């Protein structure tokens, strides 16, 4: 029986394992050093915040793996001997495979800051980071201030976590406005304000120079690059992005760049070895996507795809329309299609923007200047239907069409106030058009074309 070994029990590896099991009776082993059972990394924050217990982050009960005949092996892989088709573990054990899937995910970036390995300095990525945070920042007497370095999605989540225990937080963001490499200015500005409303000391255009230690090797303070200011703190969160977690592959003969190089079939240069998820790097980007996509959804999609190949239906990784989501403190964010920030805006791209006068809600619709084709939407504080936008993107609808039928896409809970009329009125006024918003229609929502 063919033995499939998967290194990494995150969403990519586990999805691959589940789908291989559905389609075959191959022997499957999932190897992980982090935790025996699969848990949702995105939910770690809720454990610290007291919304959940760690067990709630595990999507499958513990009996699931045995019942589905998926073996779980705890251990840290130190090397891959591709020629012998064998894994070597740190403790000296070995494990043979017929096919190997590398799904080792990412690790937090460290940019060589002095003091970056001190006690009390941590990322917010692994289960062990959560345990560290519980140790160094259990409450605001043990931790009088935390400094977070790096203004991305994990940074703002870490800030939210610490604030849930009333710990003062200083948030150092390199950019002039939060996440403005991705978000248009309107939205970035709204999030800036929202961060401050949560009593987070947001420092824009600010870089870390060094982390200072006390006599016990613990964090004592950080020094800010621009001003030289010294900020006393007990915890430093490094959340300046992630890189593929592939150090152990250096001697393996598997081609690596920033990640494990794979072709469209998620195959590495070595036969029977594949890579999926955060650690996989496409030779050439797919559409407007990045070569490395460190996103939950893409990891899952790669797992779904590769399982087909492993089970005999050779399948190319061809993700559909881009989508993503996040939550910035209280503000939910969804995106469908491509909306680039002003910094990354394409030649042909134009915005239509609407913002609620009081509530923290806004949208940016991106469209082609000349053809008016709808390119993508960012929506904040308003939920939208994935299926509808996917259909509109595939159908290459115009922005006028999108606005006319916007009510079909609304996914807010029942009885919420709807804003389509205001949104369409603004577009009509700006563009001298006369679009009449249509009422929501179940028939259209469920039509297949």
């Amino acid at each position: 029986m063919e033995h499939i070994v998967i290194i990494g029990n995150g969403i990519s590896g586990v999805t691959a394992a589940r789908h291989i099991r559905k389609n075959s009776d191959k022997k499957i082993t999932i190897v992980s050093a982090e935790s025996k059972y699969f848990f949702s990394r995105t939910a770690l924050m809720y454990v610290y915040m007291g919304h959940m217990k760690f067990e709630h982050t595990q999507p499958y009960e513990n009996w699931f793996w045995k019942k589905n005949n998926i073996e779980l092996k705890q251990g840290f892989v130190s090397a891959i001997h591709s020629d012998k088709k064998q894994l070597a573990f740190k403790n000296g054990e070995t494990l043979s495979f017929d096919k190997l899937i590398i799904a080792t995910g990412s690790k937090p970036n460290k940019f060589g800051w002095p003091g970056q390995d001190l006690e009390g300095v941590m990322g917010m990525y692994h289960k062990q980071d959560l345990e560290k945070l519980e140790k160094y920042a259990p409450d605001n007497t043990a931790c009088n201030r935390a400094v977070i370095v790096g203004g991305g999605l994990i940074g703002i989540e870490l800030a939210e976590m610490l604030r849930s225990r009333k710990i003062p937080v200083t948030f150092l963001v390199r950019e002039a406005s939060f996440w403005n490499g991705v978000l248009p200015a309107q939205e970035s500005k709204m999030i800036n304000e929202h961060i401050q409303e949560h009593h987070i000391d947001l420092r824009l255009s600010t870089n870390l120079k060094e982390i200072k230690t006390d006599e016990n090797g613990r964090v004592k303070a950080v020094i800010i690059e621009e001003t030289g200011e010294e900020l006393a703190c007990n915890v430093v969160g490094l959340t300046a992005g992630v890189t593929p977690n592939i150090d152990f592959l250096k001697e393996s003969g598997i081609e690596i760049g920033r990640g494990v190089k794979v072709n469209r079939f998620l195959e590495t240069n070595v036969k029977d070895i594949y890579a999926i998820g955060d650690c996989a790097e496409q030779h050439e980007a797919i559409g407007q996507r990045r070569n490395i996509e460190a996103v939950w959804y893409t990891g899952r999609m790669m797992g779904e795809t590769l399982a087909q190949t492993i089970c005999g239906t050779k399948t190319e990784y061809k993700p559909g329309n881009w989508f993503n989501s996040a939550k910035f403190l209280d503000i939910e964010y969804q995106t469908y299609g491509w909306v680039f920030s002003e910094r990354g805006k394409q030649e042909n791209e134009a915005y239509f923007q609407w913002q609620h006068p009081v509530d923290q809600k806004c949208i940016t619709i991106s469209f082609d200047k000349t053809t008016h084709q709808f390119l993508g939407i960012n929506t904040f504080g308003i939920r939208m239907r994935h299926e509808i936008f996917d259909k509109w993107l595939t159908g290459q609808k115009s922005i006028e069409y999108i606005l006319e039928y916007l009510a079909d896409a609304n996914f807010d809970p029942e009885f919420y106030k709807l804003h389509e009329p205001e949104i369409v009125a603004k577009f009509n006024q700006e563009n001298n058009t006369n679009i009449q918003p249509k009422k929501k229609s179940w028939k259209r929502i469920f039509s297949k074309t």
Partner: protein
Amino acid sequence: MKAIKQSGLVIFLIGLVFFIGTIFTGSFSLSPTDLDTFIKEKNYKSTVIKSALEKAIVTSEDLNIFQFSSRVTKAYESSNLYYDNLIQKYNKEKNWKEKGKQYQYKISGKPHSLSFGLAKKAGKGLAAEHTGLMWFLTFGLGIIGALLFIVPDVVLLGKPGIKNDGIYLSAATNRGWIGWFAFVFLVTFYILLYFYPDFIVNWVFLVDPISLSISGNPASQWFLYGFLYCTVMSVMAVRMYIKYRHNKYQILRTTSVLFFQIVFAFLIPEILVRFEKPWYDFKNAFPLDYDFFFRWNLDELLSSGGFGLFILVWGVVLTVLVVPIMVYFFGKRWYCSWVCGCGGLAETLGDPYRQLSSKTLLSWKFERIVIHSVLIFVLVMTGFALYTFFSGASQIIGIKTQTIQDIYGFLIGSIFAGVIGTGFYPIFGNRVWCRFGCPLAAYLGFIQRFKSKFRITTNGGQCISCGNCSTYCEQGIDVRAYAQKGENIVRSSCVGCGVCSAVCPRGVLKLENGPEDGRINPTEILLGNDINLMELVNKK
């Protein structure tokens, strides 16, 4: 603000101490004339009960309620024992005529209910005589304290949004010592209410004036329960309004359950009594209202003229037509989390405990066995009751209808719905009764599962498996198991509280009533991946 909150807690606890303390106050004794009137009212044929009671409770001694109760129950026991002995004696003598005569002298009724009736007449002291003051020190301080504890959250919780910080870090909401204390308190309360009403007669005194003003009658322990129920729900509804102030679905739903509890379950029935009509809760549908088809109820309705007949017809129409039709259009939520009193308490008092329901597959299996057994039980019992009503025969195949009714009333009506159903909130979550026991919920569940427009829609491929939805599902549904596969949630037990949708950080879940076609949508490959792959695999 924090100081207000803390002083609110202190005031609430003082109120609670007074409330519990009230039980032990007062003295209980009857004057000879009071006893005479009582015996006459009751029309007892026993010749020994009067003297037994006279010896027991016509006294100048300072009896507390427990002594009083013990003496009264002993007096009744001695009277019944006296006639039991006579029965045995005539039995031995084979004097069948005399033996048969003795049964009429026996006094039926639960000892503690008989004792409650007497205690209501015999009570003196703080609760009975300084009712207003004592009401303020118990209910008053409790309400004021609770509100002072809750209302500052408008500021303390910060901006509107999901506020679940620290729930699993608190002893109150994570089965800590506060949770266990609440558990003991609630269980004790229900045991006293159902089985030892005389012990809490002082609490009933506190609500006598309110009962008199509504129905014109002094309060019973059930009036006390109704009043307490409405009070607790109102106060905890304020908490819901603050916690979910960003969520209109929750606000409207809370208002709705509160309205139906206060108006339909509490005020209207009491006012009906004032106009000498049968006590009836128009929204309480059979089989939750399990004694609707009992002989005594049918007799009472049929003897109440046109209005009684109207109730009878409405009760049947409610169960047979209104309930299923509404479930078809809106799901069982229209009843369970918008109208029902049990649901109302679960969604207000019980909201802090919703995360404690078990999500394991094992508990789901257990749930299906138990709830459907209760449904079968209530249907069989009702069959017996109707047979008895129409045929007049008190038993079928050697089983007495009355016995079945008594067992159901005790096991399901009192122990399951009350003691376990509410008492276990702080340990097993707030829908223990609705999830494992309610036969109406089981009935609605069938319709919701197989013939309804209601579903919780999963938003394409947006789920990140975080588990907030499953954690906060009071019905113990593993919502995430569906959402992470891109499948809609169509489950018979879902009461449509809407909290899974509220706590989802990625906008994945939406409760909605849509076309039946495509309501159940099993998927293998989620939206967002290659369209051809989706089609290939999903069609397999």
